[in-house]
């Protein structure tokens, strides 16, 4: 396997837990990343973005006072956002279905479930490199196209006429590992989605493979 050289990419790590930042930073260094900046919360990170040309942001969800979702929304839609298009990987232990969808709808590119591994981080970076997605402005949403695949069997109404054909480039380009696990995970994710009603009870957490399958349609 020979993959991508990440040495020219600038990474911004946003996490209020210094240990987690240290862990992510160590992994990125070992993967050959040279330029890494850390921020302890969303507000700090937003300030840093004004002078740090981040190519990828790895951002935790639970932070005070500005949490990960607020930060993503600020980056995407803030009138003073220095870099609304920057790819963002949401890193979190919140892996219930509704949380994954909430993160997606805030404008993140990828979702990485804790506990993390080097393979997991690289896999998400690789997906961002290999699947550059156009951005969509629709209603209050601004962010990467949430449709990652065209469904040839879809017979329903075209809800977003202006976006016809926008995701052709991303068809079939998920990582090899995901391809192996895709069908199995998708079935599981759908089964969990069915169970994940609005009854206010426990919602099951998804594995990384199930999250990937869900986000990939």
């Amino acid at each position: 396997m020979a993959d991508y050289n990440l040495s020219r990419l600038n990474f911004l790590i946003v996490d209020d837990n210094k240990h987690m930042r240290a862990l992510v930073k160590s992994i990125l260094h070992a993967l050959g990343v040279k330029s890494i900046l850390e921020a302890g919360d969303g507000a700090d990170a937003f300030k840093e973005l004004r002078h740090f040309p981040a190519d990828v942001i790895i951002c935790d969800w639970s932070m005070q006072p500005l949490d990960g979702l607020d930060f993503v929304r600020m980056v995407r839609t803030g009138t003073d956002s220095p870099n609304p298009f920057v790819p963002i990987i949401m890193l979190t232990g919140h892996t219930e279905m509704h949380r994954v969808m909430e993160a997606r709808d805030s404008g993140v590119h990828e979702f990485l479930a804790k506990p993390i591994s080097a393979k997991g981080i690289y896999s998400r970076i690789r997906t961002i490199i290999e699947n550059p997605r156009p951005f969509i402005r629709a209603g209050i949403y601004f962010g990467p196209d949430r449709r990652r695949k065209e469904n040839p069997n879809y017979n329903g109404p075209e809800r977003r006429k202006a976006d016809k054909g926008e995701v052709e480039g991303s068809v079939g380009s998920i990582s090899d590992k995901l391809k192996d696990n895709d069908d199995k995970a998708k079935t599981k994710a759908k089964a969990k989605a069915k169970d994940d009603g609005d009854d206010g009870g426990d919602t099951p957490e998804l594995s990384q493979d199930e999250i990937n399958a869900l986000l990939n349609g």
Partner: protein
Amino acid sequence: MSDDSETIQPPTNLQNKVEKGGPGAVDLDAIARAEKVIANLAGDYINWAKEDLIKLENAYAKLKKGDGDQKELLLGVFNVAHDMKGQGGSFDYELMTAVGDKLCRLVEKLDKIGPKEIEKIRVYVDAMQVIIGHKLNGDGGKEGQQLLMGLEVLVQKS
């Protein structure tokens, strides 16, 4: 989703900044090295977890004493347990991830707290202390599995 949505191509593309292959490219060795880096941090992890346990104990003591805003204290317990859940598995402490998750699940459902709930939190915090004190990595082996089973029984009883 409305018909007036707009598609915009981002001005930059990461593919222009990365090369495939060649010296410095990520390969299986690089992934293995990165995993080794994580393994080498396992010693630090024990210290991080000990720091987190102190925070948990402090929040627990305040909850028990009825000292401070309960909601805030519960959120504090949740946040620390959530961090511990998130970190454990990265360092081969899957048992910590499992117990941390159980504590998160307990606390997130609580809107008020009484002696029963405080006792349940105590049981989970004790279990986390045992995992770190005895360095029960992986699934904790026999001792770990007994701990998990014991937790279930104690929590259901209380």
